[in-house]
């Protein structure tokens, strides 16, 4: 029998420490929606999403109400659209982006991901068309998210795609005053079952339809650490593990319930600690609770490495299937502590890059001056991809050129995406390197030093 203390602890986690399930994401294969006529293809895409995800939002709300746990977002991820659209004769894939947006609005989800291309070794005709259409697709839709995978540990880095993505990010920013760049992520080693946006897509190895769940709860971890002040770091790691276990069990329960009620297989629980801009829901707060005066201080990378590892160790045992990105997220605009540190000048782009070597994902939701050149953006992408490629992990760049703004200004996205101070970027040019294009070969997997 559950005791009173456990019941009150659960309620306190939900009420005061922002424990929530960040997202129930339904992955849907659109591989049977191909058609030479893009309008027919778009209709098939729209119909299939509406048919399979029609009850997703209602089911999510029922589960949330019955278990008393907030489920912040309901989302859909689909087969990378470059694959679905490959056989279309049209040059421009914008109608498909609009069909995705319309379907997302019809079923009532918060975001739809998968306006994506996987080009780590090279582009097909469809990949090239999709990438070209990203700026218009993201600025003319509301809920569509896009991702492009430009490198893997096994294939190396496609530097032609890196070069192009610098230009695409700039163009996307110019068409939307930067805002649409929050819906665009460039990956190295993208995962196929990620429920988090903007990088969610339904990979080609996934089933027809599945339910993936992303948990959250940095506030719960930082609260737990308040009870081990001054203790050695192994005690801190152990506390994080236990807390991550509790959090993930809730995610597993929600995933199983959603899967049963929707009659769709359960895919994975993503163990990520995903912050929100709300006070007390911050990964930076955890690092500061460990003993840093500000995130960005010396010791930040070590503390983050421990946090990331402990979250995985605690979470893995709590769920039957773990996947996605699973780790600690460090999006600057979505984390009150990161915003505070960046505004105080305590957190630089270079330090964030170092942090991405040891935690989930990468340079995330970072605003840079609006006049940053496409070459420099490509250089940032290449560096981040190299970290992912060499370390056999997922890395990503979701960076926002804040058009018309410069260092110290603020760009406000609203909602979960938060607000970001424009951070300084090294202005030395990588133009000649980026202009070379070609491929960076896959790294050696022996002689590790």
């Amino acid at each position: 029998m559950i005791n009173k203390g456990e019941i009150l602890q659960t309620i306190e986690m939900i009420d005061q420490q922002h424990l929530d399930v960040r997202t129930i994401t339904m992955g849907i294969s659109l591989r049977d929606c191909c058609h030479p006529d893009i309008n027919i293809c778009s209709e098939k895409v729209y119909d299939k999403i509406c048919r399979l995800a029609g009850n997703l939002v209602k089911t999510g709300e029922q589960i949330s109400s019955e278990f008393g746990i907030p489920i912040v977002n309901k989302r859909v991820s689909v087969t990378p659209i470059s694959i679905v659209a490959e056989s279309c004769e049209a040059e421009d894939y914008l109608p498909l982006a609009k069909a995705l947006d319309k379907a997302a609005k019809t079923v009532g989800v918060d975001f739809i991901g998968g306006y994506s291309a996987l080009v780590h070794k090279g582009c097909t005709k469809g990949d090239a068309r999709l990438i070209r259409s990203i700026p218009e697709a993201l600025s003319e839709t509301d809920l569509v998210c896009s991702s492009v995978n430009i490198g893997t540990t096994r294939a190396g880095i496609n530097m032609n795609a890196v070069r192009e993505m610098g230009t695409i990010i700039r163009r996307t920013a110019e068409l939307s005053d930067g805002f649409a760049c929050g819906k665009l992520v460039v990956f190295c080693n993208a995962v196929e079952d990620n429920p988090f946006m903007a990088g969610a897509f339904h990979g080609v190895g996934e089933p027809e339809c599945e339910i993936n769940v992303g948990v959250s709860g940095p506030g719960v971890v930082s609260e737990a650490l308040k009870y081990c002040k001054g203790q050695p770091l192994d005690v801190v790691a152990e506390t994080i593990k236990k807390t991550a276990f509790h959090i993930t069990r809730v995610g597993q329960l929600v995933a199983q319930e959603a899967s049963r009620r929707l009659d769709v297989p359960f895919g994975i629980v993503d163990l990520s600690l995903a912050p929100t801009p709300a006070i007390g829901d911050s990964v930076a707060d955890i690092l500061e609770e460990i003993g840093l005066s500000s995130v960005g201080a010396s010791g930040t990378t070590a503390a983050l490495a421990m946090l990331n590892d402990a979250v995985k160790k605690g979470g893995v045992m709590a769920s039957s299937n773990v996947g996605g990105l699973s780790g600690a997220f460090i999006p600057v605009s979505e984390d009150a502590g990161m915003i505070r540190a960046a505004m105080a000048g305590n957190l630089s782009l270079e330090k964030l890059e170092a942090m991405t070597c040891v935690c989930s994902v990468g340079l995330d939701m970072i605003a840079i001056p609006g006049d940053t050149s496409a070459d420099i953006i490509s250089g940032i992408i290449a560096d981040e991809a190299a970290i992912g490629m060499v370390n056999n992990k997922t890395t990503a760049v979701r960076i926002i050129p804040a058009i018309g703004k410069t260092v110290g200004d603020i760009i406000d996205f609203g909602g979960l995406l938060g607000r970001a101070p424009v951070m300084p970027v090294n202005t030395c040019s990588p133009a000649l390197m980026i202009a070379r294009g070609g491929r960076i070969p896959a790294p050696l997997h022996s002689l590790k030093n």
Partner: protein
Amino acid sequence: MRAFVTVIGKDRVGIIAAVCTLLAEKKVNILDISQTILHDSFTMIMLVDAAGCEISFETLSAELSSLGDSLDLNIRIQREEIFNAMHRI
């Protein structure tokens, strides 16, 4: 379907009566009650069986919540499974 009703807030006359009346009206059976004053705040936890409840769980939850608002209390109902999932292997 078993669930926990939790009532937290400032103590006053008639809280238990009000909550039990609402549950009885909706045909929710009370299996166990514990009540205490914790950190100056009234804290009641009830284990209930909502299998015979005549309204949907969401409506029951909303009615308990609005009863809480009228008494200046926080009243919620959550299915037992979330506590088992979080605290038992």
